[in-house]
C-alpha cells in the first residue's frame, strides 16, 4: 500500500498524449497492401472453398493496386523526400524505386505460384496471405530509417518465409528447409539485435542519421566497432553471404519452387536494402571498419558461390549458388562506399532491379520445365529447343543476362558495379574488380552449359511432346524477358552517362 501511495504523484504527472501528424499519402502503398491483405484474409475466412481459386488473382491485384500510390508519390516530385517521425521513416526516390521492384516482383511470384499451388494440394489461400505479409515487410524496409523499424520490417519479411519454406508438409526435404532457414534466421537475428543494441548504447538514438552524427563527433570506440561488425554479420546471414550461406542451398532445394524464387529474389533484396540503408546512412564515418569487412565478404561470396555452382547437377541448387555469387557482386560497391557513396547506392539498386527480373525469369522457366520433366536435373533440359523453342529462347535470354552478355540487362548491372569500383580509384577496389571479372568468366561456364544442354544436346528419353504452358506462367516469362532486355538496351544508351539516375537516388 505504501508503494502504491508513493507512486500516486508520479502517475498524476503523466504528460498529455499528442497525436502524431501523419502524411497519409506517404504511407499509401503500405496502407493499400495492408487493407487489401486484410480484406483477402476475411474473404477467405467467409468464402472457404468457394473463393479459394480467386485468391491468386486477388493477391496479385493487391500488389498492382499498391503500385498506384507509388506512382502518384513519384509524380509529385517536388514533395520528395517526405520525412516522417523526425526522420525515422522516409519516402524518397530510393525507397520508391525499391517499392516498385518489390511490388512487381511479388506480382510475378504470384503468377509463378498460382498453377503450382493449385495443382499440388497445398494450403494455397494461406500461402498468398503470407506472401502479402512478407511483401508488406519489404515495403516498410525500403522507407525505414531507424533501427527498430528496420529490425521489425526484417522479421515481418522473414518469419512468413520460414513458414512457407516448410509448406510442402509431406516432404522431409521441405521440413528440413523450413527448420534450417528458421534456425539460421533466428540465430542471425540474435547477432543483429546485439549489434543494434551496442549501436544504440553508443549513440543513444535509434535513428540512422543520429547514429552517424553521434559517432562523427567522438572517436571510434571498441563498443561501436563491435556494434558495426555484429550488425553487418547479422545482415550477411540474411543475404546469404559466404561464410554465412550454409542454409541457402538446402532451403532453396526443399522449399516449393515458386517460394524459392521469392527467397532468392525478394527476400534477398530485402536484406540488401536493410544492409545498404544501415551502412550508407548510419556508418558513413565508419568506413575504416565496414569497408574491409565488405571487401572480404564480397570476394569470398562471389568466389565460393561460383566454384560450388560449377559442380551442381540440380538446376535449383545451381541457381541457389549462382544467387550467392550474384550477392557477392552486389556487396562489392559497399567495399568502396566512402569514396563514391552515391554511385555505390545507385549501382546496387540497379543490380537489384535487373537481378530480380533475370532470376525470376530463370525460375519461371524451371517451373515450366518441371511441369513436363518432373525433375530438376540439368540433364533433363536436353533437347528442349526441339519441343519448346519459345521457352528455350527465353531461358537463353536469362542465362546470357546472368552471364553479363550485352545487350541483356545483366550486362548493364555488372557494368555499374565495375563503374563504382573503378571510380573509387584505390588498389583494393581495383583488385576486387579483377576478382569480380574472373568470377564472371567462371560463371559463364555453368550458365552457358545449360544453354548448350537446351540447344544442342538430345532429350534424355527421346520424349519430344510439347510443354503446355499455362497463361500465368507465360505472362511471368513475358514480363521478365521484357524487363531484362529493356534494362540492357536502355543501359547501352546510358553508358558513361547514368549520372541522372545516380543523382536522383542520392537526392536527400
Amino acid at each position: 500500500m505504501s508503494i502504491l501511495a508513493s507512486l500516486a504523484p508520479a502517475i498524476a504527472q503523466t504528460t498529455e498524449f499528442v497525436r502524431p501528424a501523419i502524411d497519409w499519402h506517404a504511407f499509401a502503398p503500405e496502407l493499400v497492401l495492408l487493407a487489401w491483405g486484410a480484406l483477402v484474409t476475411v474473404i477467405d475466412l467467409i468464402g472457404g472453398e468457394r473463393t479459394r481459386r480467386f485468391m491468386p488473382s486477388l493477391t496479385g491485384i493487391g500488389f498492382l493496386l499498391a503500385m498506384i500510390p507509388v506512382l502518384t508519390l513519384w509524380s509529385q516530385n517536388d514533395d520528395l523526400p517526405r520525412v516522417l517521425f523526425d526522420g525515422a521513416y522516409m519516402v524518397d526516390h530510393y525507397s520508391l524505386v525499391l517499392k516498385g521492384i518489390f511490388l512487381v516482383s511479388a506480382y510475378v511470384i504470384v503468377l509463378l505460384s498460382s498453377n503450382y499451388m493449385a495443382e499440388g494440394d497445398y494450403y494455397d489461400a494461406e500461402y498468398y496471405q503470407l506472401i502479402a505479409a512478407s511483401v508488406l515487410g519489404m515495403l516498410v524496409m525500403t522507407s525505414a530509417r531507424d533501427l527498430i523499424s528496420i529490425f521489425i520490417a526484417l522479421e515481418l519479411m522473414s518469419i512468413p518465409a520460414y513458414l512457407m519454406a516448410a509448406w510442402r508438409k509431406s516432404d522431409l526435404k521441405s521440413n528440413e528447409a523450413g527448420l534450417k532457414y528458421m534456425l539460421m534466421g533466428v540465430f542471425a537475428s540474435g547477432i543483429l539485435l546485439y549489434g543494434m543494441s551496442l549501436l544504440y548504447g553508443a549513440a543513444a538514438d535509434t535513428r540512422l542519421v543520429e547514429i552517424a552524427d553521434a559517432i562523427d563527433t567522438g572517436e571510434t570506440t571498441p563498443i561501436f566497432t563491435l556494434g558495426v561488425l555484429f550488425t553487418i554479420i547479422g545482415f550477411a546471414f540474411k543475404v546469404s553471404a559466404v561464410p554465412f550461406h550454409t542454409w541457402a542451398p538446402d532451403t532453396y532445394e526443399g522449399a516449393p519452387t515458386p517460394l524459392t524464387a521469392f527467397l532468392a529474389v525478394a527476400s534477398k533484396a530485402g536484406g540488401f536494402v536493410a544492409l545498404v540503408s544501415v551502412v550508407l546512412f548510419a556508418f558513413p564515418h565508419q568506413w575504416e571498419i565496414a569497408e574491409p569487412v565488405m571487401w572480404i565478404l564480397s570476394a569470398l561470396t562471389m568466389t565460393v558461390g561460383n566454384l560450388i555452382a560449377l559442380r551442381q547437377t540440380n538446376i535449383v541448387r545451381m541457381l541457389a549458388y549462382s544467387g550467392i555469387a550474384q550477392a557477392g557482386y552486389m556487396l562489392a560497391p559497399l567495399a568502396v562506399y566512402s569514396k563514391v557513396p552515391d554511385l555505390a547506392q545507385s549501382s546496387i539498386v540497379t543490380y537489384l532491379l535487373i537481378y530480380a527480373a533475370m532470376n525470376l525469369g530463370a525460375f519461371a522457366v524451371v517451373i515450366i520445365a518441371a511441369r513436363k520433366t518432373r525433375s530438376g536435373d540439368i540433364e533433363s533440359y536436353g533437347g528442349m529447343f526441339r519441343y519448346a523453342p519459345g521457352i528455350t529462347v527465353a531461358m537463353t535470354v536469362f542465362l546470357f543476362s546472368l552471364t553479363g552478355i550485352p545487350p541483356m540487362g545483366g550486362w548493364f548491372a555488372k557494368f555499374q558495379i565495375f563503374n563504382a569500383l573503378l571510380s573509387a580509384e584505390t588498389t583494393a577496389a581495383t583488385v576486387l574488380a579483377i576478382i569480380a571479372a574472373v568470377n564472371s568468366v567462371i560463371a559463364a561456364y555453368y550458365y552457358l552449359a545449360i544453354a548448350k544442354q537446351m540447344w544442342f544436346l538430345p532429350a534424355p528419353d527421346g520424349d519430344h511432346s510439347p510443354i503446355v504452358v499455362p497463361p500465368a506462367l507465360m505472362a511471368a516469362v513475358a514480363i521478365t524477358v521484357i524487363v531484362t532486355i529493356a534494362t540492357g538496351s536502355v543501359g547501352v544508351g546510358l553508358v558513361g552517362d547514368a549520372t541522372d539516375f545516380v543523382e536522383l537516388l542520392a537526392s536527400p
Partner: protein
Amino acid sequence: MIVALLAQGTPLTETGLWIANTFFYLIAFVAVGAALKMVTTSNVVHAALYLLVVLSAVAATYVILGAEFAAVTQVLVYLGAVMVLLLFGVMLTRAKIGAEDDLDHEQRWIGGLVAVGMLAVMGYSLLEAYGSTQLPADMQPQRVGPISDEIFSTYIVPFEALSVLLLAALIGAVVVARRD
C-alpha cells in the same frame, strides 16, 4: 523498496546506493552461477529451470536500474511465455526427462574457448566504454506512460507491422502444425 525510493523522486542517499550496489552484486552472482549450472547440468528440465533463475535475475537488474517496463515485460514474456513453451516442448516431445549421459556435445571445449574469447572481447569493450560511467544520482524510474506515448506516435509503424507479423505467424503456424 528501491523502486519506491525512486518513485518518490528523491535522490538515492549513500545508504540507498550501498543497498542498490549490494543487491546488484548478489543478483549478478546468482545469475552467473545459474548460467554456468544451466550449460553443465545433464538434465534438460533442470537446465530449463536454471534458465528461469537467470532470466529472473535479469528482470531484477532492470528493477534496480529503474526500468520498470522492461522488468515487467521480462517477467511476462520470458519467465511466463517462453519458459512455459520450453517446458512444454520438453514434455510433449519424446525428449528424455531425467539425467542423460550424452547431453554434452563432443566439441564443447572448442565452444568453451569461443565463449571465453567472446567474454574477453565483449568485457574489454564494455569496460572501456562504460567502466567509469555512474548512474545519475537523481535517476528517475522509467515510467510506462511515456513508453506508450512513444509506441503510439514515433514507433507507430513498427508497432502496426508487428501486429501484421503476429497474424501472419499465427496463420502460418496453424497450417504447418495442422494434421492432415
